[in-house]
């Protein structure tokens, strides 16, 4: 029996999507189900997992409240600080920079994001560590300054690590901005500052929202920055998870925490998309 055109077309589509679907199912959907199952289990006598159906792990969540508190305070705070530095930078790149240099300047902002976050965070560990800035301060007479392993160091690391990711979406939204609107505003007698607040800023809000949402979501799962710059004193949910899985081997409790982390990410994402729709008036908002 010869294949009809539609059957053939369907077969090709299925063949194209088969590997990716299999991958998504086996390494995303199944692991997530496994994690849900583990989260209602019990810790085995020697660590690991023992089958059970109990919500004891979830009831035990307050035991790690410090990690939740730090994450939920420092992730948005870090994203906000990032925004404060990123907006003027993006504005300069999109509006003020000469077109001749723009591409190079933008590239210089993007490139660090794709280099190792581990190495970039290590750089600050090096600078803030006892033989870095505190040592220099000591030479001019200011002794015993501790910079590393403080919330401030973690925030600095966050701004450093995620600044490129905040600048890009804001830059894109500012670059798309129709210059004629700015000219029209000026022609109608608006001062530059009032043009900025009534035209430029509102039109760049979708970019701001995308940047804030992206950075906040990535920060919620952060491990390296609090680990290296917070030194066990300022720890995030990610640090609690590494401890529970790789050191204390309490997998069911760790799974319960991981499930709540995903829930938090989903809530933040949903709220961000709601706000973004309201701002832009369309549903065409790309968060990824």
């Amino acid at each position: 029996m010869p294949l009809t055109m539609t059957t053939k077309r369907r077969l090709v589509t299925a063949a194209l999507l088969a590997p990716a679907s299999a991958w998504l199912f086996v390494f995303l959907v199944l692991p997530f189900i496994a994690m849900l199952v583990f989260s209602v289990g019990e810790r085995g006598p020697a660590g690991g997992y023992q089958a059970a159906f109990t919500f004891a792990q979830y009831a035990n969540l307050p035991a790690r409240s410090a990690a939740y508190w730090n994450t939920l305070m420092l992730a948005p705070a870090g994203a906000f600080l990032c925004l404060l530095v990123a907006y003027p930078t993006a504005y300069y790149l999109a509006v003020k920079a000469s077109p001749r240099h723009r591409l190079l300047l933008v590239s210089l902002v993007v490139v660090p994001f794709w280099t190792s976050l581990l190495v970039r965070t290590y750089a600050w560990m090096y600078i803030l560590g006892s033989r870095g800035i505190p040592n220099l301060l000591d030479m001019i007479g200011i002794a015993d300054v501790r910079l590393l392993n403080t919330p401030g160091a973690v925030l600095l690391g966050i701004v450093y690590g995620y600044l490129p990711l905040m600048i890009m979406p804001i830059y894109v939204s500012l670059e798309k901005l129709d210059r004629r609107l700015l000219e029209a505003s000026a022609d109608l007698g608006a001062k530059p500052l009032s043009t900025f607040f009534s035209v430029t800023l509102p039109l760049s809000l979708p970019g701001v929202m995308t940047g804030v949402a992206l950075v906040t979501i990535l920060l919620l799962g952060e491990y390296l920055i609090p680990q290296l710059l917070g030194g066990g004193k300022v720890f995030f949910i990610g640090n609690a998870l590494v401890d529970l899985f790789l050191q204390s081997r309490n997998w069911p409790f760790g799974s319960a925490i991981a499930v709540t982390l995903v829930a938090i990410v989903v809530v933040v994402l949903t709220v961000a998309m709601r706000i973004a729709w309201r701002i832009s008036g369309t549903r065409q908002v790309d968060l990824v």
Partner: protein
Amino acid sequence: MRALITAVYLFLYAPIALVVLFSFNAGRNASEFTGFSVEWYGKALANPFLITALQNSLIIALVSATLAAVFGTMAALGLERLGSRARAVFDGLLAAAIVVPGVVIGIATLVALVAVFGAINPAIAAIWPGERPPQLGLGYGSIIAAHGLFTMALVTMIVKARIATLGRDIVEASADLYATPLTTFRDIVLPQILPSVLAGFLLAFTFSFDDFIVAFFVAGSKTTLPIYVFASIRRGVTPEVNAIATMVLVASLLLILIARLLMREKTRKSPAGE
């Protein structure tokens, strides 16, 4: 305004520059530069653990990025042939693969694989005729699978965006001129999406090569370069770590520069796009 921008660029690059500078420091002391030397590079490169970690990272990045590029491109091509409902489901899964934190991906993969291995290994042992049955465990495969999940989604997104800018008319024109779908794909579509596929491959490679947290969970007894660097940092900040860090930086800088050149090529060739 200019001063602020200069400060931002200084902020972005000065810390990296400092690490690079001190990797050439002759002295052990991290706070003063006592003379130029490449001694630490020699020391780092003579370290067999570092070389093994580097080899592992290169193998894992190469395999996972290749799979991601091939499967991701196939998925991007297949997606536009799907109905809107099936496409929404697929898009949702891709978005989840990108948005779910790496630490959760690592944990979920670890938990699932350990459960699967726990079921399969005794079964293999029961039917194995020889003395020592093979044991399935964490290692290359699990890292490649977990990295490939994120990077495949990334490649799909990049190639999908490129396909969206392609004119349908040229594909239809090709069909009108009696080209078979395969010929149209090979001569019309493929050349146009190839730069984004390559860029996606390089970004995938860079991600896998730089990833620490996902591999940390699913590496088993294998050591990747970031895991090795992390362990060295915890043992103490030495100029040797600076040398390794500098080499890691240079490697990812090269990759990202090539990727960006390819992406720019793409935009230059299609002034109508974007």
